[in-house]
């Protein structure tokens, strides 16, 4: 792979040199044109320009368009009117009321926003803790290490639709494994799926089951990167196992934690598929998250502009989580 590229690089400047030496162009244009064309940024344009354009149009362009759309009053079919832009949808999203584009009152998004935050924080914290624990256990040079690693990681390969149906069964009060386990310790069958006190926790639990394997793999890589000498030095200094991990090893897993956290929170923000497979369009007030609300507004009601406004809120939440990570990476020179 590398060889043809190097050949190509060697050939390109070579051709230009011949052309300047030949003096085919006039001095003034040659100077201006040459300095522009020979800039590194211009010469590498074939490599960075196409992806930049593609990402710019299809990712940032789409985000920008979505923001623009959220400022319109677009509902139903037809084309949005970009002539009159205002922040009405955001006012409605946070205060409720009857927007100008609807005859019906629209509820504010506080409930689904709160559920989203609880789900993201609870899920990410438990998932990281469990992933770290699993990683430390798997790192003890146990037998069948690869088998365990695969078993823990396997749920992540399943789609949300499969895991949602699977957990619907797991939570069944009569035949589900969770209630059988609870029954074994004397806790009578508990209604979980439609129980307002347990619903969100049950969803977070199922997501933890699915993604803790991912956290484990990230942590395992982090642990393997720590030199054995650190473990040995801590041991020589007389640190207990708990103290060794707490004071020496875990502080070195900062990068692993942050990168796993970013991925996990983004997964949790997008848990729409899971909720939709479990409850349909209406997960109920105690489990409604921004993603389900957004799809309901956009696709059930055709309130495209309002759905876009909710999408922008969701986007800002994701950005708030990702940007500190990007910034810290940038400060450390890792970007």
């Amino acid at each position, binding site marked *: 792979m590398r060889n*043809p590229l190097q*050949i190509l690089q060697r050939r390109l400047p070579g051709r230009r040199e011949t052309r300047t030496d030949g003096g085919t162009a006039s001095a003034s244009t040659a100077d201006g044109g040459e300095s522009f064309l020979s800039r590194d940024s211009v010469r590498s344009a074939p490599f960075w320009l196409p992806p930049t354009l593609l990402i710019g149009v299809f990712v940032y362009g789409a985000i920008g368009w979505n923001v623009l759309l959220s400022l319109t009053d677009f509902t*139903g*079919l*037809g084309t949005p009117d970009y002539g009159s832009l205002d922040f009405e949808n955001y006012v409605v999203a946070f205060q409720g009321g009857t927007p100008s584009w*609807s005859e*019906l*009152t629209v509820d504010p998004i506080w409930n689904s926003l709160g559920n989203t935050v609880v789900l993201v924080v609870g899920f990410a914290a438990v998932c990281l803790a469990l992933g770290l624990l699993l990683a430390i256990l798997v790192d003890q040079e146990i037998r069948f290490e690869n088998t365990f690693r695969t078993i823990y990681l396997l749920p992540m390969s399943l789609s949300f639709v499969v895991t949602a149906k699977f957990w*619907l*069964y797991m*939570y*069944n*009060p*009569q*035949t*589900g494994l969770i209630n059988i386990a609870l029954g074994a310790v004397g806790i009578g*069958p508990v*209604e*979980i*799926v*439609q*129980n*307002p006190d347990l*619903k969100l926790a049950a969803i977070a639990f199922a997501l933890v089951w699915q993604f803790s394997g991912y956290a484990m793999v990230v942590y395992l890589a982090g642990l393997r990167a720590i030199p054995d000498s650190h473990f040995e030095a801590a041991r020589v200094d007389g640190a207990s196992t708990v103290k060794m991990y707490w004071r020496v090893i875990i502080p070195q897993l900062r990068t692993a934690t942050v990168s796993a956290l970013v991925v996990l929170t983004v997964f949790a923000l997008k848990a729409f598929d899971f909720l939709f497979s*479990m*409850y*349909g*369009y*209406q*997960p*109920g*007030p*105690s489990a*409604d998250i921004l993603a389900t609300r957004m799809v*309901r507004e956009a*696709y*059930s*009601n*055709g*309130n495209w502009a309002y759905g876009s406004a909710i999408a922008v809120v969701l986007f800002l939440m994701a950005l708030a989580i990702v940007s500190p990570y990007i910034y810290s990476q940038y400060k450390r020179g890792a970007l």
Partner: protein
Amino acid sequence: MTDREGVSRRRVLQGAGVAAVAGLAGCGGDSGDSGTNSIELLHAWSDGDGNAAVGALIDGFQEAHPDVEFAEEPVNGAARSNLDQVVTNRLQSNNPPSTFQTWPGKTLEKFSDAYADIEGDVWNDDLKNNYLEGPQTQAQLDGTYVTVPLNIHRINNLFYNQNVLDSAGVDPSTLSSPADVVDACETISQETDAVPFAQQTSGAWSTVQLWETILLAEGGIDGYESFTSGNGNRSEVKAALDSVVELSEYYPSDASSISFTEANTMVMDGDAAFIHQGDWAAGAYSGDDSFNYGEQWGQITYPGTSGSYLLNMDSFPYLANNPSPEATKTFLSYCGSAEGQVLFNKEKGSIPPRSDADVSQLNQFQQDQYEDFNNADNQPPSIQHGLAVSPAIATNIGSAFSGFLESYDAGATADALIDAFN
């Protein structure tokens, strides 16, 4: 070496370019050939009885009109909501299909501007004289005929397992009000080990259609219609919810984890006595040779709603800017014919909306339902199944019931249901 590599790389690029251009041209071609005659029908009946039904309808149509070409395109994913998204995208890009599967009634408001009038062309005197008033009203959007209903599923049924009722000593024909159903459930729970009332509660839809049936019983046709027009009587709405709360005591304990299919199987296996469902529930029974209508299972009109045939229908609308105007109208006329409807409903398990259909080919249960339909005093539209209220109000009602399933708070839900129209 390098030269040859360079050439091959260029060739690859040229090839890719040609392919890309061809692909673009192909895309353009799709929307460009609007002059052709072939009908593009989008539906979500990708398996089971629905697929057999639409297949029978199309076969019948092609036999009657061999000159009309058909490009049937089932939308994969098989959910109606998914189909709606596909149609939305097609309409947004001004590339409508010939027709698609949709609920008639207020659901039509979702794409209201996209439909065109077919009165005269399709809705001629023959159709107008032979559709009963209820289904005929549902075919109209603000008084304009835009769609052709082709089947009716009834919502206000109560199915039962005969053996379970016998061992509990309950005679279904004596039940005359929603309260009687609750009393019968109590008797069944005392006399047998069976679950009195099979129901699923992971999704809200089964509960909404149960509530709307009981509302029809509590408020009568007038109370039901005033609710769907936004002037509901709170005490009637709450009384119906109270009745659902009472029935919920007799649900399976794992109602929130099971699906409708599993709930229905409980009735077939004798693990449950009653189930309230649309008459698609009977479709599963007919697939079981040891579970026969009139012997092992039976059906009564939900107690308190006799004289009403609560409608859930599917229909094919006519879209403006149609890619195949004449062919589509020919097809819709066929859908409006007794012949086409019998072919479709024989497989679907529902009944034809035309009152003059020859239903002797349908099974006994369908024939009994059809007789009920023709003798019904009124045919109110279903709330859950999109006929009675506009999509945004239906979403509000769904939200109210998703809260109801968590708390079973009849008072708060009644307020939310009345508020759903504001």
